[in-house]
């Protein structure tokens, strides 16, 4: 019934299938016993109450659930608990450094890179991944990097202006 749902009822009712996993979330060590097929997005939102990571399509199409695993951008709705044992995960909550906003966040604020904000955490993770990997991205590289993140509110204009500003200010990230 729920597309892309990895947890079946039988599994969730059985407790003996649970496994211990160990991982780092935003640089904090975590250890928990979990059904190995629980989706990472549910783990983050329900177990860790990190609700900055959103859910919208559940099938890897919208990017609202974007997080980084070991520095690579992934859709958390497509990753299961057993795949992240020993991994290091960064979510939107881990982007701002010691209470000051990350330059990408500041640029989104000042350029109107969001409206409802529901796509924003995922979008910022995607921008972060882009600027981490590409020193001076071209327009095409910006488009490609954000093509997996849908925004229904802004028409992408404010998002593009924010990304361009981040690049123009040559922030060392």
């Amino acid at each position, binding site marked *: 019934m729920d597309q892309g749902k990895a947890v079946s009822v039988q599994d969730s009712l059985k407790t003996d299938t649970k496994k211990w996993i160990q991982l780092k979330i935003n640089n904090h060590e975590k250890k928990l016993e979990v059904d190995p097929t629980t989706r990472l997005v549910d783990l983050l939102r329900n177990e860790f109450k990190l609700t900055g990571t959103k859910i919208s399509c559940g099938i890897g199409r919208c990017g609202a659930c974007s997080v980084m695993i070991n520095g690579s951008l992934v859709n958390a709705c497509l990753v299961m608990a057993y795949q992240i044992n020993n991994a290091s995960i960064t979510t939107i909550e881990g982007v701002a450094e010691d209470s000051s*906003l990350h330059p990408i966040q500041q640029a989104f*604020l000042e350029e109107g890179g969001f409206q409802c904000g529901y796509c*924003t955490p995922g979008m910022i993770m995607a921008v972060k991944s882009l600027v981490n990997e590409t020193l001076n991205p071209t327009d095409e590289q*910006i488009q490609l990097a954000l093509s997996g993140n849908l925004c229904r509110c802004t028409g992408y204009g404010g998002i593009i202006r924010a990304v361009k500003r981040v690049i123009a200010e040559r922030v060392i990230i």
Partner: protein
Amino acid sequence: MQKNQEFYKNRRRIRPDGKAKVTGSLSYLTDLSFSNMLYGKILRSSYPHAIIKSINTDHAEKLYGVKAIITHKDIPGLNRFGIVTPDQPVLCEEHVRYVGDAIAAVAAVSVEIAEKALELIKVEYEVLPILDSPEKSLEKDAPKLHPEGNILHKAGFKTGDMEAGFAKAAAIVEETYQVPRQMHAYMETEGGVIVPEKDGAITVYVGTQHGYKDRFQLSRILDIPEEKIRIVSSPMGGSFGGKDELNIQPYGAVLALVSGCPVKIHQTRKESLIAGLKRHPMKITMKTGVDSEGRILANQVNIIADTGAYATLGPAILDFSVEHAAGPYMIPNMVTEGISVFTNNGVSGEFRGFGGNQVTFALEGQIDRLAEKIGMDPNELRRRNIRKVDDPGPLGHRIAPTNGAYEVLEAINKKLTIKTNQLKDSPPNDKWKVRGIGTAITMHGGGLGYGRLDPAGGRISLSEKGKIEIAFGFEEAGQGILGVIETIVTEELGCAPEDLSIVIGDTALVPSSGSTTASRGTSMVWHALQRMKGAFEQQILNKASAITSVSVSQMQLGRGGVFSITKANSYALLLTYDEIAKQINENETIVVSTNFDFPTTPDPVDGGHFLYTFGAVLAQVEIDLLTGKVKVIDLDQSIAAGPVVSTMGYIGQIEGGGVMSLGYTLMEDALMEGGKYITENLDSYLIPSILDVPFSMDTEAIEQLVEGDPYGPRGVGEIGTVAVAPAIAKAIHHAIGYWPTRLPISSEEILFASSQRRQRQWIKVRQ
């Protein structure tokens, strides 16, 4: 014409909700959780049209972890909802009319168990013939979807002598336009938590566009007094009209009351797609005649709207289409007939643009075709028919004087000249790519219209904590109402953002302000402030005067508190707001509230609007002749909606609205076959991604109003969506000589049209 005041000094503020949004710390209502919280799931019909023979929940009830199962028998009050006409069953007793009709709902300790329980509920149906088009529903022997039949609403407008008009016409164009079932596709699907409180009260943490209306509807369904229902309705991850009607609230509320536990429901995208509202698909036939000078002599319009299974705001949307069928043109002879028909196709309802988008696609298409037929520049034809400052509105009714139509037309025409020259100078250097440019204009009414309850209001007070508390019953769906409130209040009062506490979206704390729809929020905040600020300033200054013995005339409000203005150029802080608040004794308050109605036309024309905004769009497309793919490379708009309150908010609405309609024009259709959705998620229902939009868009705000206009800034939530489709259609015609009549325009038809054209050109060359 004058530049209207120095509206507003700081229009590039950072939104008050911004920081929480970019850091992910903002809790949306679907992010909330409570202790003992259960998860709700709703069982929807397996068929688009059927009679329920039996519902058996025995099995499901025995499932471990299930805490409550409800069917129609468990609805305490009226088992119906609908903003105007409550005709939609909360839980169906017998008759199911679309695949989103709810039959039962479950609350369980986990989502998985709730889903399993739904599978265990056995429903026996007797399948009925499916009415999957308005035409089928209108057949004589079609089964009746509702006791009164299959027609939800008829609307019409008539002026002059249409036949005489056509008789004098030098050219006539007749065309039928078809527009799709667009989905709002807000990124946050419907959901939230409903919490039972003491004494049978509940708190409903679920997004909506009119908290008080939800409270009213839920009171009727739950049979508990409105005072016992608190609606917390902000923030939302988008709505665009789609969350205006009730969605999951009644199920969550009944489950919470039955189980005694908080119940969370957050629809999956597929559930949202099946149950949620869509934009009305319409078939619009227009026959339009002009004389050789390009004056429109007659326009005959026929609109058939597929309203789906239930009413919601279907009648008002049809009225809106009928009203806007003449657009910003003065057409002497006109007959418009509209009919909104029940079918088994989902539920059509409120959606940004509200019937204007559909009819504008048809009207502007007619203008472009007529211009071609008589060999006139289309914008010249528009100019010859455009409304003037004091002309009546499209239903012949009086409206607030405005020259917006002419201004946006001239503004977009300028852009067209520039872009056309650029294109001539540097055509694409790929022989398989062709480009074209098109423009279109529109006029769009704000507020609910004549004869509709459209109250607004607000409250401003000095709180105990020394904050200027400004409260409105509006919701923040992303549009930026918080930023609008901050700008207007701080600039009107002269206080600082830090002095403010903005309260919205919670019926326990805010006055009723009417709905957050129909581009009315910005306008109503401004109007409310105009009404309240004098009295509020007076109250604060009186108090300050009582404390300091400085006379009221020598003080004014400022950043942080009350300032003395005794000597010229001396400006000193006398008292902070906090100090004033501390001096307020128990039986004293500083509070001003207001109630008023959205301004309407003085003429008794049902649904007729009074404040209109105007928009003009320029679209440039590049068509790939090998694939038929249409890429929009420019989407620029000129908007006349009065002064800009927030620059980022304004541009964001226009760009975002434009792109939403780019999707409407080229990609989006919630396809149905036999009353069932074929598209079920964002993999088959495609909305524009960053790859589908122009890399930069230009928004021009024409801020001036006519001299003495007392109505202030108008809302721009919808205007940017309205004239996009016809501009893109015209651009396609400019590129390949093909007139699209059906949205979304497919690559297949473009490929077919352009290859036929090339064949014709080839034949010409050989002859």
